[in-house]
């Protein structure tokens, strides 16, 4: 079963002959697409009081139970 994080052909297309010249601990590089900046900017909230930028997280329990 292929893991979704198997080292697939990354966008960098690094030649195997060069990879094996790296130390062994750096030879398996896993790429993961990053959230595009324009999306991240839309989703993140700046808070001046805490000087933090974060995704806003809602409550993990219902605040009221009025909608059927």
């Amino acid at each position, binding site marked *: 079963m292929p893991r979704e994080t198997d080292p697939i052909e990354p966008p960098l297309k690094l030649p195997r002959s060069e990879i094996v010249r790296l130390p062994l601990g*750096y030879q398996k590089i*896993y790429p*993961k697409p*990053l959230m595009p900046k324009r999306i991240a900017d839309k989703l993140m909230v700046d808070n001046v009081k805490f000087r933090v930028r974060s995704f806003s997280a809602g409550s993990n329990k219902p605040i009221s139970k009025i909608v059927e």
Partner: protein
Amino acid sequence: MIFIFSSVLDLSTTDVMRWLHHLGVTDVLRVNYDDAANDRIVEFNVDQDILSFRFDDRVIPLSEIGAVWYRKGRHWLCNQFLDVNFSDYPKFAAYIAKKMFAEELRLSEYLHFVIENAVPELGSPVRSDLNKLMVLHAARQAGLLTPRFLISNSKASLKTALAEDPLITKPISDVLYLFETEETNFGYYTYTETVTAAALDELPDRISPSFVQEQIIKKFEVRVFFLDGQCYAMAIFSQGDEQTRVDFRQYNYTKPNRTVPFTLPPDVESKLVRLFELLKLNTGSVDFVVDQQGRFFFLEVNPVGQFTMVSAPCNYFLEKQIALTLRQYATRNRSN
């Protein structure tokens, strides 16, 4: 006042700040190393060893700071040095840029040195720059077990080692953790990997120095958050899941590993306390692997420890503990 050096993206810092406010400590100043746009250090002066700086409209002498928490980052002065443009001479410009960076590093080092000598601190920018191999040495000095390892530039040596024991490999310094937003918009990571005969066969005879370590067949792993002498331990059961079996940071989000509170054996705990004394650190996260015989193998210390991943599943309230520790440092400082 409590000073926190952090990153603009760090949520744990915000949680600790909420606790500080709730515990009655409202004068909390957060400085982010990566928040250049909002960098409000307007002016600073060091007169002999006496530091003061103007942050927004407020002048803050060192004497007013009760405690400092080095949560993340080091070069919090990254934008104090003015940009210089020598576009006609790119090689010279590159050299000057390196010099300015080195100048900034030295100044930063000195400023943190001054703060360290005047104010109680949780964490340390200077002592957080750990050499992992030297830490393994210190761990053994403290009486902890560490897995056998080999560093070699010879393919043949690695093959011999693999013939004796199953091996894993990882970097000597830090894992790859790159967010490449300009060319490809991809993140690039490396993890601890098993070493296979096939992978070794592909290598040239002479290789770049590589670090390999005996692979411990785990029963489970333990992560400990160390805070001012106290150990908060969590057991991680990752071996049932192929994806996380070698490196539990390859998180399986669909079926998370079990993470539960754990009571460290007293001898392991006392050796860990000893290790932190040797490293002169008062906080950090420590990773252990426990083998089938129940022996604890020390893997590494991360001085900028992620504590939320231990606190939340174990219900330890570490954010509150950190806030209490900072408040306590500030109170003790005032009475001195």
